[in-house]
């Protein structure tokens, strides 16, 4: 089947087998190897991307289902050379060690913050329940997400607001 998926702002038209998973399409055809595969049962969340602004495990979506959609991966988060506040917060709070779960963890965190701009610790823990990390024990990830929430809150600065409103509009496209 021929599909067109806009990945990190670039429209990509490809012929894919109907069985191809979105994550394999992204990695093998589009070249977005920043998004990784950690399991084969949709438990680990390492492959999490945004599909039309909503976080999905890209191993649980067929490439053909993404036809006509916008996909944002970890590689498309930084704008004009500026890291997303969640990326910055992961760095500042030492929220990663080996970094394999990090792309999915960051994508899920952004989605979580779009739903709940000021989550408490328990809300962050529950919001990230579908993303596994073996290195950090999660403590610094939780800290990073809450730190990012503070950086992105209204009045935190023009750059953060621009990115925060970006996120809000993308998530708003869900139509929920």
């Amino acid at each position, binding site marked *: 089947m021929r599909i067109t998926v806009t990945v990190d702002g670039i429209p990509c038209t490809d012929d894919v*087998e109907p069985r191809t998973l979105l994550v*394999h399409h992204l*990695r093998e055809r589009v070249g*977005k*190897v*920043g*998004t*990784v*595969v*950690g*399991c*084969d*049962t949709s*438990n*680990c969340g*390492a492959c999490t991307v945004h599909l039309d602004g909503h976080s999905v495990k890209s191993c649980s979506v067929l490439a053909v289902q993404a036809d006509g959609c916008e996909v944002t*991966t*970890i*590689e498309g*988060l*930084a704008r004009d050379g500026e*890291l997303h506040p969640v*990326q910055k917060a*992961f*760095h*500042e709070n*030492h929220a*990663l*060690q*080996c*970094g*394999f*779960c*990090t*792309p999915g963890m*960051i994508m899920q965190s952004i989605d979580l913050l779009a739903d709940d701009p000021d989550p408490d*610790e328990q809300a*962050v*823990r*529950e*919001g*990230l*329940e*579908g*993303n*596994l*990390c*073996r*290195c*950090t*024990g*999660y*403590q*610094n*990830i*939780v800290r990073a997400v809450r730190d990012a929430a503070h950086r992105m809150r209204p009045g935190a600065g023009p750059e953060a607001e621009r990115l925060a409103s970006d996120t809000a509009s993308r998530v708003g496209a869900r139509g929920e």
Partner: protein
Amino acid sequence: MTSTIEPEVGKSRRRKEDERLITGRTRWTDNLTLPGMLHLAVLRSPFAHAEIVSIDVTEAKSAPGVVAVFTGKDLDPESAIGMPCAWPITPDMKSPRRPILASDTVNFAGEGVAVVVARTSAEAHDALEAIDVEYDELPVVLGLENALAEGAPLVHEDLGTNQNAVWVFDSADAGTGSSVEDAISHSEVVLKRRFRQQRLVPAFMEPRACVVDPTGSQLVMWSATQVPHILKTMTAATLGLPEHKVRVIAPDVGGGFGGKIAVLPEEMMATLVAQRLGKPVKWTESRSETMVAAHHGRDQIQDLTITADRDGTVTGLKVELLADMGAYLGLVGPGVPILGAFMFNAIYKFPAYHFVCTNVFTNTTLTDAYRGAGRPEATFGIERMMDELAVELGMDPMEIREKNWIRHEEFPFTTVAGLTYDSGDYEAATAKAKELFDYDGLRREQKERRESGDPVQLGIGISTFTEMCGLAPSRVLGSLDYAAGGWEHAEIRVLPTGKIEVITGASAHGQGHETAWSQIVADKLGVPFEDIEVIHGDTQSSHKGMDTYGSRSLVVGGIAVVKAADKVLAKAKPIAAHLMECSEDDLEFSAGEFSVKGTEVSTSIQDIAWAVFSAHNLPDGVEPSLDSSDTFDPENFSFPHGTHLCAAEVDTETGRVRLRSYVCVDDVGVAVNPLIVEGQVHGGLAQGIAQALFEEAVHDEGGTLTTGTFADYLLPSAADLPSFTTDRTETPSTTNPLGVKGVGEAGTIASTPAVVNAVIDAVRHFGVDDIEMPLTPMRVWHAIQHGSAAAGGLGSEAGGGLGSIDATGGVQ
């Protein structure tokens, strides 16, 4: 002119590694694509023990996109290749040949029997289904005691036994203590317990992968490995390749925890296939393959006897272990439980000690190193026993530990196991931990809840642990019959512009070496942190090393870096003296500047670097290079320690355990980067707590791993774990110039017994003195109901801990 005034060591520097990892600019092995690259898929046995009657690959060979299909007989017609085991722990150790692919019999479910090579990974996997293997099932050997029973079927018929080796240490024989049998005969209290260390899966997040390119003059292997240097040498030795024709690269590696210390049949398979076809090939496993084919950890039965006087003074410890090797021996598998031999006596002054370990073969995935490797098992055993002894004697569990531990003023202290602990301050770590924990307050609350019959009971668990880190003094490894040494190598290259390249033989996979090594070198040479690049993980650029495991990188590899930096300065000094026309004796070096004492005259290391590069004006006989390398072979291990305190709430109506608070004060010596240290402790705690509460690799009666996916094997999520309170005391190691001890395994080693002790403490008044790990709600509830240990099968089903599974709404 730049110079660093404030020391870098001790700063919580944000990591250099992060930039590529948070932006997705990573080079995981599976990300690599080479021109003409083919893909491998491995067919694995569904049976734990069976004869292979026939393998028919005809149909698979003609499947779309398939280039070739190989069986074990195709790749190794003489059955001459065996995967290496580097640790023959006894001269008579039984060592079965582990083939690259099974040809005659399969010995565990998941063992490879054929490999398909195709244009795409999907086509290779499709073709697996077209391979027809006829098996003739054999009796399956499972369970340590079953395997050793009279008349038990054998995993390897030709060995004549399921016993791999018996390894013994006795303090009376070794001259390090007295006789345990005497202690047992004469002591006022003799307490015996049996504990089980369940089997665990290391579960690094990045599945294993390798790419082999045979097209250049050197064969190049990229692998998701902890041990590129060992892999290079072992690939050469295993396949008979000239070592100088092999280059191994560990690119970005997504976690290891010991699970990537192995040399893999798949790596050897990929090499042979690549050579046969003259094409680059890639093998990447699925998570389901990892679970059955990558080595597991732990899996012991521990029979422990502790003896003491009525006043609580311990008089002896006898340790009898059975350790499951699985179906074959891993690279260091047989030695893993032996590392525990030196740790069961822990921080206590036992006068008599006996350790015997029987390694056993079963028809299961092989076991090998997993975070802590032998030391978590030992620490669990002794810390559980100290609690049991305290109960037996009616003492507070902290009081009995204090009574028996090595006091600060007694260091250095030679233990009953023959190790000399150089330093430690158990009093300081314990005092700090008790204060942070509110030990007395929680004990009061526990009493109140018990008296009021609260359905939620509170328990307090203690673990005052130590570990041996910095593996390892080569002489000690030699005395334990390990095949290699334990040194590490480093090189420092001073570039013409004064920038620095640091080459290290330690191969990082999440530990933050690039950051920490930069901090060390910045202090030593007085160059900015940003001007230092750390290079590792490629045997071409980092040609010498022993890699990363056993909390060794900083304690051994970091010291090699320090020594190499000292050599750079020694080479720079005569040049500085020459340039400033003074005597070397008049020079002092500080913050990157050589200055002439008592004058304003100075020259920087960067200026000297350029002078060396131009080489126009060097002293006679001085080479135009500041580059220096060195190796470090430690004289002794390092001994981090700490006090971990856990408060657990147990809902006695459901058996559910909630960790109310977890406090640990670790003493890892000098912290080069406190932020990284804290992160290592957090992650270690999570893994140790997961052993206590969540994780277990379970085989059914046919030898099938029933916890073979992340849906069944309960890796804790953020929602399953509490926040930890971590702190440090800092008693520098006296055996290395940085005063460091290592931190990679501390959290994992210490936390498991703290959690289990807490849960038992909460329900002991129901008559419970043990619950098998993992402490699932069903096991805890059952123990409360029956007033005894819930040893045995109950609750051993997959996912028994509930954990991430939300029964009301499902997994998000």
